[in-house]
């Protein structure tokens, strides 16, 4: 894992001191709210419906057990005993007091964490595949790249006031678990014909009110050209992004309005200018520095183990709960005898992504004991133990059961993403968490969820789409209609390398109508699918939206007949 050097330590501490001072000046009246607000946002502090909310960065979703324990301590000491893991691999505290923020930030700094650039029109926390460094399908660990981008983008003076926020995601695998096509910049690692690793650079993806699928702006970018190339994209965006209109200010709109070819020409021209005028990449770090970063992410010393664990096979034979959990919540690891564990934050009826202090501590202990001291936060709002021996799965499962964390539903219909919605968020137009809770209870029966198979439901409480509803197989968007909460269903979204934006199924419905509508939709899917292995999204692609629209809106059927 990356460790702070002296520069990082000094920088983070000085930012905390600076923020304490800014906050004091707000309290003394030297700063107005209008002056203070952008400053607090730069430090991750929002004002929500019922309290301040502090968003803490978990760079590329990686943390160690000591950091997880500190997150638990903060929840216990300064918050209400829980935190919310988000689709951006961050954690949010919902009950922060202004006068505690300095102390919280210092506690974070103690374990090399902060809340810098988790908000505002800057380059945000870089996200990455949560299976990084562990996945069997990986070309290279994306985290050294993500860390390099983090260092480059942190306090980058030229890009501190961009037209709008800017999000970068990196994946090292062909199976895209980082939703790279829905980010301002997505980096997908691949090899060229000579076998050298580089990136496919994707630009202009995004969700929000105008969802767009990112476009490939460079098929292959050699690794050592990464920073000058990113610098070039950001320069073009910084110059031409629509500062006149907040809703058109993201790079996706610039790419859309400018056209990919023209955008590409501008970026390449800037790139060539940088390389030529400066006699080489301006912002290219020296190879030593790159090697240093890479060393932080060196794979742990994996034991030589057989591919199968006799101990696990035996335990599974007598424990159906363990068997179901192993089947759903583990993924292939690159080392023989190891696996990747997904700890579901989606127990039946739970608020997706919420973890209590006690649960965070249990996960920290498990990470320390069984996963080389590493944990990850996934954009699906789950927690990952990346390096686990198959032999240890029974003990881990037992510990998770005790902590109420053993839901065996990773990737199933109850593994729902939901943003905070109107229960917390000041921008929300409707609630999202209660809808998720209702749906998870409806599909709680394990045999039914298993029969349905891979099925993603994603819920946002407003058009900003923090809950990724555009890319859910089923997306649910909460809006306000005539003074009540109204929910719009979208169908056919996909968050993977075959990214797709869902299409609207029809008119909005009340919160009470959503659950039954989704049940009818699922029943229709089970009826028409080709085989038990055909996922909902595959059936949707084969048959189109009509049979599912008919199931959601049965009252329309006779009219159509």
């Amino acid at each position, binding site marked *: 894992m990356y460790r702070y050097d002296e520069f990082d330590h000094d920088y983070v501490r000085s930012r905390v001191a600076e923020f304490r001072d800014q906050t004091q000046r707000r309290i003394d009246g030297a700063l107005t709210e209008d002056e203070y607000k952008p400053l607090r946002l730069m430090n991750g502090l929002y004002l929500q419906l*019922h309290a301040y909310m502090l968003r803490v960065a978990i760079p590329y979703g990686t943390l160690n057990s000591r950091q997880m324990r500190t997150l638990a301590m903060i929840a216990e000491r300064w918050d*209400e005993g829980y935190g919310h893991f988000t689709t951006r691999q961050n954690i949010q505290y919902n009950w922060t007091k*202004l006068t505690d923020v300095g102390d919280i930030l210092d506690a974070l700094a103690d374990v090399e964490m902060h809340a810098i650039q988790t908000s505002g029109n800057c380059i945000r926390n870089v996200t990455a595949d949560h299976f990084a460094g562990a996945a069997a399908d990986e070309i290279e660990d994306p985290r050294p790249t993500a860390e390099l981008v983090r260092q480059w983008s942190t306090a980058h003076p030229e890009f501190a006031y961009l037209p709008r926020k800017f999000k970068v995601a990196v994946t090292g695998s062909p199976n895209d678990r980082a939703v790279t096509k829905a980010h301002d910049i997505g980096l997908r690692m691949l090899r060229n014909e000579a076998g050298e690793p580089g990136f496919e650079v994707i630009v202009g993806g995004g969700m929000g009110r105008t969802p767009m699928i990112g476009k490939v702006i460079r098929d292959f970018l050699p690794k050592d050209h990464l920073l000058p190339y990113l610098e070039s994209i950001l320069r073009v965006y910084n110059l031409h992004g629509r500062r006149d209109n907040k809703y058109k200010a993201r790079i996706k709109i610039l790419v859309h309005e400018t056209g990919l070819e023209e955008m590409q020409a501008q970026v390449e021209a800037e790139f060539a200018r940088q390389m030529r005028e400066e006699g080489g990449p301006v912002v290219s770090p020296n190879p030593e520095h790159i090697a240093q970063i890479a060393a932080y992410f060196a794979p742990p010393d994996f034991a030589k183990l057989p591919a199968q664990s006799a101990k696990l096979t035996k335990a599974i034979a007598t424990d159906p709960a363990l068997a179901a959990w192993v089947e759903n919540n583990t993924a292939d690891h690159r080392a023989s005898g190891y696996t990747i564990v997904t700890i579901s934050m989606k127990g039946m009826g739970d608020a997706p992504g919420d973890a209590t202090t006690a649960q965070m501590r249990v996960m920290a202990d498990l990470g320390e004991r069984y996963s080389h001291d590493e944990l990850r936060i996934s954009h699906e709002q789950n927690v990952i133990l990346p390096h686990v021996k198959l032999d240890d799965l029974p003990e881990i499962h037992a510990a998770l059961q005790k902590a109420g964390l053993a839901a065996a539903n990773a990737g199933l219909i109850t593994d729902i993403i939901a943003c905070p919605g109107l229960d*917390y968020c000041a921008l929300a137009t409707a609630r999202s*968490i*209660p809808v998720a*809770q209702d749906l998870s209870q409806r599909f709680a029966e394990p045999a039914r969820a298993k029969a349905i198979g891979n099925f993603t439901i994603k819920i946002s409480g407003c058009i900003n789409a923090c809950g990724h509803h555009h890319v859910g197989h089923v997306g649910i968007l909460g809006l306000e209609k005539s003074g009540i909460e109204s929910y719009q269903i979208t169908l056919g979204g996909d968050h993977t390398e075959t990214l797709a934006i869902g299409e609207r199924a029809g008119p909005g419905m009340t919160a009470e109508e959503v659950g039954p509508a989704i049940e009818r939709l699922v029943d229709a899917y089970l009826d028409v699918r080709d085989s038990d292995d055909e996922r909902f999204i595959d059936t949707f692609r084969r048959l189109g939206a009509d049979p599912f629209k008919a199931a959601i809106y049965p009252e329309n059927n006779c009219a159509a007949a």
Partner: protein
Amino acid sequence: MAKAFKPQIISANDLYVGDVVYMNSGGGWTRKLAEAAIAHDAGDAEKLLQRAVPQQGKVVGPYLADVALDDDGRPFPTHFREKFRTRGPSIRPDLGKQAIYPERHEPLAARGGI
């Protein structure tokens, strides 16, 4: 004819705790909607707002919110967003205004706000 005026109150968030407060008739702040000053016409509403806006040392983002009045003349929220603001998260009845946490109210109380 002018549109009928809906009664309004001033809502804001406390600067220190961040929770929801309402302006009372003395121009101070209360956590109880029942104690909020009510504007019965547009002129009143504007006056209330003018009184609230300069109070940056106590609150953030004061604004006028519509209310309805019960038989006893007490205000209650009409929009669902305001309902949640008077209560707290619907999914956590143990938190927010709906659960009384006296210690969370200290900062404002200490400054004579309640």
